[in-house]
């Protein structure tokens, strides 16, 4: 059990106690919501762990490295950013996937770009965004988000190198 998870667990436990002290019914409802969300996300979480097992166990690391490895530079970043933009993976399960790819030899920049476009750009939400906010607004927001994701990735690559 890592220090990070201990800190997080303690922090949330404190929030829970404060909530309980303030309002018992609301806290009960919060726990019910948490339970239902866990139940609903459960299959996806387990599936992504199995996929991680498949990737780490059976895909040669050099495949990953040759696609989005650190020495692939901007091409790796673009591939990862593009994948992140079109794939629909809930962020909740994307982080463990990203960490396993990092261990397999993916570049930090590429992974940063992947996570950022994955969360900021919703390809499957685009029709809905266009319908509600207009083509110009939706395309501008998603297009600029893509550029911002690349910028974030490049700066992270420089800082974390």
């Amino acid at each position: 059990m890592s220090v990070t998870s201990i800190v997080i667990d303690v922090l949330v436990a404190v929030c829970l106690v404060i909530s309980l002290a303030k309002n018992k019914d609301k806290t009960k409802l919060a726990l019910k919501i948490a339970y239902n969300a866990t139940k609903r996300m459960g299959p996806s979480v387990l599936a992504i762990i199995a996929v991680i097992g498949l990737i780490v166990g059976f895909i040669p690391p050099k495949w990953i490295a040759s696609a989005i490895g650190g020495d692939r530079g901007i091409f790796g970043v673009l591939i990862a950013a593009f994948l992140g933009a079109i794939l629909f993976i809930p962020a909740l399960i994307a982080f463990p996937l990203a960490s396993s790819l990092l261990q397999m030899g993916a570049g930090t920049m590429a992974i940063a770009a992947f996570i950022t476009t994955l969360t900021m750009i919703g390809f499957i939400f685009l029709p809905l965004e266009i319908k509600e906010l207009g083509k110009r607004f939706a395309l501008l927001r998603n297009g600029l988000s893509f550029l911002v994701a690349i910028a974030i990735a490049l700066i992270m690559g420089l800082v974390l190198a």
Partner: protein
Amino acid sequence: MSENDTDDDKKARVTDGDSSGQPPSAKPPLRKRIRWDYVFLTLSVVALVTLSLIFPDKGSRAGKVVWEYVKEMIFILPAVMVLMGLFAVWVERDLVVKYLGKGSGGKGLVIALLLGTLPTGPLYVAFPLAAMLLKKGARVANMVVFLSAWACIKLPLELMEFQFMGWRFALLRLGLTVALVIPMGVLAERLYRRREPAVRDFDPAEVKEVEVALGVELPGDVSSG
């Protein structure tokens, strides 16, 4: 994102109105009855087990990795879910509607950013909300910042990132996102230039529907331009 929608997706589906004319007893089409997450889970587990049986040495490595991630998930997932539950009951969506669009200039942008980070539902419930506020005269920059923050900065999810990517990676990415989203919103507004009417008209029934789905009352009259 579908991970922080508690009961919102149900509500959204109810207001989708695509099931019109169907008697309640009719079965939904097959495509909708399939639980894709279970299909995905079954396929990946079958593939993992089969490959592990064929290549036992690679399989044991995969098994170790799977066990590591299961352990990490057990220690972090309940905390993240509980935090989302707490947000769901303590942060009213009213708050977002009340303050979004308040404050002008830089202050408005920061408020939009902060409101976007509150985990109050999936992205698609934010679209109609942003559209109606835009109609009411909210700044394009504020709405872009709000939607982008709503999409990618969610407090409980930051905990997942801390856990799996490490503090340095997570904090740096969070800091850069916050720093870049605001200039992005301003740039989007510059490029946007309202040549045509910004947003389509909403009829009052539609506004009512969104209000019911969000559980809030939108300020003023949003149905007319």
